[in-house]
């Protein structure tokens, strides 16, 4: 059945890699994306991508990469898929290299590596300070080749609205909306891959692009896909605050020698180096974020009395910095007007990455047959905390594996999507048209953008770096209040053409649905593990909580179940970064 077709939603690393792996086997792909795929959020990743290439003579190995990833994730990730990812990492880097990605080089012309958090060996390949951009451009160029051959059809400027599910519960396509004409259409496919990224917008301001609302995941969550480990949200320790977004200052700045400090008793205090002598400034992100939070919020020692500390590179050679971190330092300079080669940068933790996501099996299929998820929107590879430079890897690798798994799945189908009754597609399309019309009719007195600000403030305050049950209860009550007020929105733009407000209103509902999953998941989990930290339950509790959180949508709010984690390869041990033996 070579006429079979696959839909990929999302044009970041995972979506483009999946597309490549499917089309090169002769299957056609329809690729949907909110933006031209070359503008996808993967390009915001700066520092690099991990693979045990061992070009620095340090005896690195894929086994060590695997161990560091599991340990860094506080043992919450299923181990076999993570092992496969680490084993495949060098091959994926070599693939990118052949595509022409301009990785930085050693004097011998091999791929250079740098140090990142939570590891002791140089394992991070990088392309200056814009690694995500360069990887994305590599994949974008490859997909364009197939587009020129007519094997890939791009739908750029379209938003995914829902999966089309037949009466047997099998996914047979999608509905999507053209963001210019606002028309809603259904599209048939034998399998659908969602590669729709994270959901930083739930926190209002984050390091994410404004398209990272999580709406696609929220939509299929309401159609029966489980959302796993939602409470595990990574706060990047080094964000720079802004009105419109908290821009990222890459972990590479610490990897290349950046030191974090504030003043104590009138003298610089390098608190990470003091508290975590074994890893110093290169402790994993959850640890660094909590330390900065503690120094600023609990000890009141932030610079100028504000929630900020210094990230200092001024002791390094300016030319070295420009060469290794250029793109990153440019961003800081451009948006603050200060040169980080000369003055220390001011930073504070910012919401950055969702370790959790749609629950998938090891073939990346969700509970709905034919509906797959890959990339940040899946839950698979990072457990309770993600190590720096593992996200570009998991995005690439999940796309790399989901492609062949999709082909395997559609080969086993006994009937194609084109054999499914048109009424199934018409029914779902009609449902979406009605939702759309209802939004156009909204004529209350609430502003959707202000509701979104309130959601973000609520999540930052109550579901942030440090969590207390009473605050989490408040958070959920507030979200439910916002859901009530949502019904009373006043639509400020009712035009039937390129209406961004209508699309935002629709996304906002899905953000609210997922916000409850995050807040209630955090409330339930009475322990501290990775990015999820409760002072009232400061220890990790494997006996009760070495479990994957699985939220299921019901009309009365999310219901939670918990399933075992596969720990068949590495026995869980206590995770410590303050002593030499900590990370093995």
């Amino acid at each position, binding site marked *: 059945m070579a006429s079979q077709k696959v839909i990929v939603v999302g044009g970041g690393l995972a979506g483009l890699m999946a597309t490549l792996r499917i089309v090169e086997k002769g299957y056609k792909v329809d690729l949907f994306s909110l933006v031209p795929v070359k503008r996808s959020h993967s390009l915001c990743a700066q520092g690099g991508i991990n693979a045990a290439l061992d070009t620095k003579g340090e005896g690195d190995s894929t086994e060590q990469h695997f161990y560091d990833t599991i340990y860094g994730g506080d043992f919450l990730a299923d181990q076999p898929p993570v092992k496969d990812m680490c084993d495949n990492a060098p091959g994926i880097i070599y693939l990118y290299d052949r595509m022409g990605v301009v990785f930085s080089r050693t004097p011998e012309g091999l791929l250079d590596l740098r140090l990142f958090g939570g590891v002791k060996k140089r394992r991070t390949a990088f392309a200056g300070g814009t690694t995500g951009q360069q990887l994305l451009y590599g994949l974008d160029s490859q997909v364009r080749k197939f587009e020129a051959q007519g094997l890939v059809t791009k739908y750029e400027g379209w938003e995914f609205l829902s999966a089309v599910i037949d009466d047997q519960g099998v996914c047979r396509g999608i509905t999507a909306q053209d963001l210019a004409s606002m028309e809603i259409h259904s599209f048939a496919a034998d399998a659908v891959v969602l590669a729709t990224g994270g959901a930083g917008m739930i926190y209002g301001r984050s390091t994410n692009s404004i398209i990272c609302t999580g709406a696609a995941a929220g939509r299929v969550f309401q159609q029966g896909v489980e959302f796993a480990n939602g409470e595990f949200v990574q706060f990047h320790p080094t964000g720079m605050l802004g009105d419109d977004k908290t821009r990222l200052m890459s972990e590479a700045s610490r990897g290349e020698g950046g030191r974090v400090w504030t003043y104590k008793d009138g003298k610089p205090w390098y608190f990470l180096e003091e508290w975590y002598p074994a890893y110093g400034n290169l402790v994993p992100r959850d640890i660094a974020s909590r330390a900065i939070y503690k120094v600023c919020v609990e000890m009141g020692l932030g610079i100028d009395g504000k929630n900020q500390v210094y990230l200092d590179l001024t002791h390094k050679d300016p030319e070295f910095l420009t060469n290794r971190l250029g793109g990153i330092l440019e961003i800081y300079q451009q948006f603050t007007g200060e040169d980080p080669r000369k003055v220390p940068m001011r930073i504070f933790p910012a919401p950055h990455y969702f370790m959790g996501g749609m629950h998938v099996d090891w073939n990346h299929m969700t509970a709905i047959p034919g509906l797959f998820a890959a990339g940040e929107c899946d839950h698979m590879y990072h457990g309770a905390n993600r190590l720096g430079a593992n996200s570009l890897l998991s995005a690439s690798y999940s796309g790399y594996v989901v492609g062949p798994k999709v082909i395997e799945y559609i080969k086993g189908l006994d009937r194609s999507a084109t054999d499914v009754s048109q009424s199934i597609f018409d029914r779902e399309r009609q449902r979406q048209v009605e939702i759309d019309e209802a939004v156009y009719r909204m004529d209350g007195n609430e502003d959707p953008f202000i509701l979104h600000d309130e959601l973000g403030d609520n999540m930052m305050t109550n579901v942030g770096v440090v969590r207390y049950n009473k605050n989490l209860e408040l958070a959920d009550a507030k979200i439910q209040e916002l859901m009530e007020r949502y019904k009373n929105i006043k639509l400020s733009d009712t035009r039937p053409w*390129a209406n961004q407000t209508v699309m935002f209103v629709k996304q906002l509902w899905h953000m609210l649905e997922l916000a409850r999953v995050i807040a209630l998941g955090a409330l339930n989990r009475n322990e501290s593990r990775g990015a999820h930290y409760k002072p009232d339950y400061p220890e990790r509790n494997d006996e009760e909580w070495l479990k994957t959180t699985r939220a299921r949508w019901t009309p009365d709010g999310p219901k939670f179940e918990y399933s075992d984690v596969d720990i068949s390869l590495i026995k869980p041990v206590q995770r410590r970064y303050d002593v030499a033996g900590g990370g093995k």
Partner: protein
Amino acid sequence: MPEYIHLKIKRQDGPNEPSRWEEFKLPYKPNMNVVSVLMELRKNPVNAHGQKTTPVVWDCTCLEEVCGACTMIINNKVRQACSALIDQLSQPIILRPLTKFPVVRDLQVDRQIMFEHLKQVKAWVNIDGAFDLGRGPRMSEHDRKVAYQLSRCMTCGCCMEACPNVNSKSDFIGAAPLAQVRLFNMHPLGKMDKNQRLDAIMTKGGLVDCGNSQNCVMACPKNVPLTTSIADLNRQTTLYSFSRWFNRE
């Protein structure tokens, strides 16, 4: 310190609709940029005359000047809105959509043609497949640096907007895809197909349509060496023409 942020925005409801100017005044806050002002504006879309209006439509994605989406003309200069800091702009701040691309709505334009040009010039390395074939070719760090300068092009359209030879009467593809030809012709694997790319830019709308005004390199927000690349491609196409002439059958 100004009391207000004063904006003058060129608006248009759709591709075939007339355009109009609308002014806005917002209370001043420090450290804002054009995107954060437009975000503030949409929360309460009222113009400077106190009339209710629709929120301004514009594209933006990353807000870190790396995706290229929010390109527009700000005080007569083509640039990204996210990195246009209000405190560094003279007021009123005048926002206009790009003029070399069809307007979708307000400040939003359709730049699809730029991606078509990348297709036209075959801006990719023709790898055999997305599987592991072991290490890629070695490359010197020096060559890598040159390539990186070129590969940071974010297809934003500034160079096309600034170029007098890109206009409705010309097919000139502009500087951005030309620089990509140079990039892929440098790569150890990419250069195997370099003549195909040269063929693609030796036709109408290609290299010869460059009028050497050198506006592109001034407009590029990422300092891509566009004019140097065009000069290099002139050399490459000349050599290629000679070799074709000498080797003709």
